[in-house]
């Protein structure tokens, strides 16, 4: 999350710089603004650094001295534990990466294919289909019917698809995308393409999509994050342990510990079980591993991100 805010910060700074060409802000203000955002960045980055520090702290030191950015004694035992604890983690990693890649591509496709027609003035039923999507944002079917759709109507429980399909369509992203198509693609471009003999599909894939890279990148990033960070769908639908994803694995461990600590578990064995669950540093090591690959998604999207972020707000 920290780096997302940092991205925002940079985008805002850029806006400031651009403005200051003609109407320069005073050096004092400049320093103050910079200081302010440096503080913001530190607030975002410090917890992550702390987690990394904890994951490298010796367990005994951790229990006795508590958390510290610069531990008295370093240790890689936590990673050793996590990595040698069977193939569970690596398998979960694989599931997460597969679901994220597949999900993002499919989801972008579904969203664009829905949003594009709605952005075209010539589409007669666009109001109805807009409302159709909008309606789902206000009314939901409830948990149990929703659950039954994916277990009985479309029986995909305990498959990789159940972690993808429920998030394929997102009415909110669809609307952002529709606005983006509307504002970026001028009707005259489509017209000229038509005159040159291009069909609807060709216009969409060859002309419209390449022009909307910024929008695609933004929505793509949202989808990637959504799929990567999701533990709710496995919680609902996955009972086979080989299909657990990395976030769910982490959720499961942390949640177990929190529950047993809370004192609501009134059974004599709870203390013993607690003592045997992964140690503090091992948990932090899992957390560090889980942010690993997703952090590489940011630089990739960075280029488009600044432009993309303004679609919903300014131009909307």
């Amino acid at each position, binding site marked *: 999350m920290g780096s997302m805010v940092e991205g925002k910060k940079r985008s805002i700074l850029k806006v400031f710089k651009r403005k200051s060409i003609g109407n320069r802000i005073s050096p004092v203000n400049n320093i103050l603004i910079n200081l302010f955002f440096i503080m913001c960045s530190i607030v975002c980055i410090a917890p992550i650094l702390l987690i990394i520090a904890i994951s490298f702290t010796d367990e*005994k030191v951790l*229990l*006795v001295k508590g958390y510290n950015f610069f531990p008295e004694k370093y240790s890689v035992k936590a990673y050793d534990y996590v990595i*040698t604890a*069977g*193939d*569970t983690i690596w398998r979960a990693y694989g599931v997460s990466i597969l679901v994220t890649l597949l999900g993002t591509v499919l989801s972008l496709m579904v969203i664009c294919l829905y949003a594009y027609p709605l952005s075209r003035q010539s589409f007669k039923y666009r*109001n*109805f289909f807009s*409302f*159709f999507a909008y*309606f789902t944002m206000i009314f939901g*079917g409830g*948990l*149990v*019917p929703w*659950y*039954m*759709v994916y*277990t*009985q*109507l479309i029986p995909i429980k305990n498959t990789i698809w159940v972690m993808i399909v429920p998030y394929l369509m997102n009415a909110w992203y669809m609307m952002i995308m529709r606005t983006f198509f509307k504002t970026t693609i001028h009707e005259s471009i489509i017209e000229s393409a038509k005159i040159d003999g291009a069909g609807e599909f060709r216009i969409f894939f060859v002309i419209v999509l390449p022009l909307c890279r910024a929008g695609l990148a933004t929505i793509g990033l949202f989808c990637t994050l959504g799929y990567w960070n999701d533990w709710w769908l496995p*919680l*609902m639908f996955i*009972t086979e*342990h080989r299909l657990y994803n990395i976030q769910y694995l982490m*959720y*499961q*461990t942390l*949640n*177990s*510990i*929190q*529950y*047993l*600590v*809370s*004192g*609501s*578990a*009134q*059974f*004599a*064995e709870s*203390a*013993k*079980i*607690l*003592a*045997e*669950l992964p140690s*503090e540093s091992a948990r932090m090591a899992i957390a560090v591993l889980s942010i690993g690959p997703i952090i590489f998604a940011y630089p990739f999207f960075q280029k488009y991100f600044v432009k993309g972020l303004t679609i919903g707000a300014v131009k909307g």
Partner: protein
Amino acid sequence: MSKTKRIYSMILITLLALTLILTGCAKLPAADTGSGTGTTTPSDSGDSGKTKTDEPAVKLTWYLVGNRQEPDTPKVLEEANKYLKDKLNVTLDLYVFGWGDEYDQKVNTALAAGEPIDIVFTANWAANYNVNAASGYFTELNGYLAKYPKIKEILGEDFLNGSAINGKNYALPTNKEKVHNWGWLLKKDLVEKYNMDVSNIKTIEAIEPLLKIIRENEPEITPICIATMDAPFQLLDWDRISDDDVPGALYPDNRDYKIINHFLAPESIELYKLMRDWANKGYIHPDAATMQNQVELMKSGKYFAASQSLKPGKDAEMTASTGIEWVQVDVTRPVMSNRETTGALLAIPAGSKNPEKAFQFIELLYTDKYLKNLLNYGLENVHYKKISDNVIELIDPANSGYNPGHGWKFGDQFKDYLMSNEDPQKWEKFLAYNDEGLVLNSLGFVFDKTNVETQISSCKNVVQAYYKQLFTGAVEVEPTVEQFAKELKEAGVDELIAEMQRQYDEWRNSK
């Protein structure tokens, strides 16, 4: 425009209605088969003794709560299935889900959707036994219990009735320690170093001289370890009617039938004062009110005494799992309460297609020593090796492929092998401990929260805001208790207690 809008909304409504009907259709068959088999009385299906192997084996799906699915589960199940094929002609599919939210969420949605699960673990603290039984999600087992009487013989009438709701058994409790008591775990090296005599600590105050010795001689050690509800307050052992943080309890000695607000009972206030005194003397860590995890604190080795729920051999168990040696000091008298009777149960969901097979399988967990130990410890010579007939040693427990610690979760725990570091007399001591216990009057009473849900949640909020300071002696007792009492009154504690009393009296008269 308004006309087209109307048409659109008509289409929408039709679509919605269609979806409802469709989902309704999808649900019906499942619900039908669920209730159909659920209500089948044992006498209807008279073919109980069928173990003919030419029939296709029945698959039983079993949900359990635990740390994780052990990596070698398939190997163990393969072995178990070979054995069960001849015994009952069933195969087993075992799923283990994490503590708390994960398990509750998984089981509750599956039950609500009528999924064909055959056996689930449930308890007063997991997959809410009382609520799910009351909602009709569990099969009533009285008929099966009469038909297959072995479980009743093993558990005993008293204990089995304690887990029943309005005289009906919806789940079968594990046969293990049936009572609990409270006391201290003391750090062994310090007890030996100062030659402490722990035999006559029978009250909470009696430990004070020991704390004094530690405080004066061991500057590195905090005498008492407190975190959240794990505090000496528990040594009062109130027989709580509802959750830990809901006011309303009986005295744990059957002295009367009057439910009181135990957070403000004279005994509790005395204890708060004692804690304040101890905090002032430095026996309690100044930050104890914000500490979270008692066991982690105990592992650090910087604490001398921790209040714990006890049973025979608890000290050995905690020594093994914390890496620090402990001595156990029993303080309160053992009692048999609802905490134990509904502490670990197996139920058969109404969605099960083979409730009778499931019941027969559960019966095996109580009677079949081989099966019980196979599921608990895994394969001989792979996961454990036998030292003598009834004593085993785990092979490389830290990296073992199967070390789930299931012993107390199902069946008859007294059939489990003992570990080499355990007291060989463990089960005999457990049995003696069970006999020692006082059966509380409230055993079998289940409080129905529906009428007072608002009062319960507001009272919980108030308790959450005050209990830590009082339990750890962080604040002056008199003014805080006064404020505490005032806020509880505003939260509706009087109506809550009155409702508890009403239900309790009704239940008592109907017995």
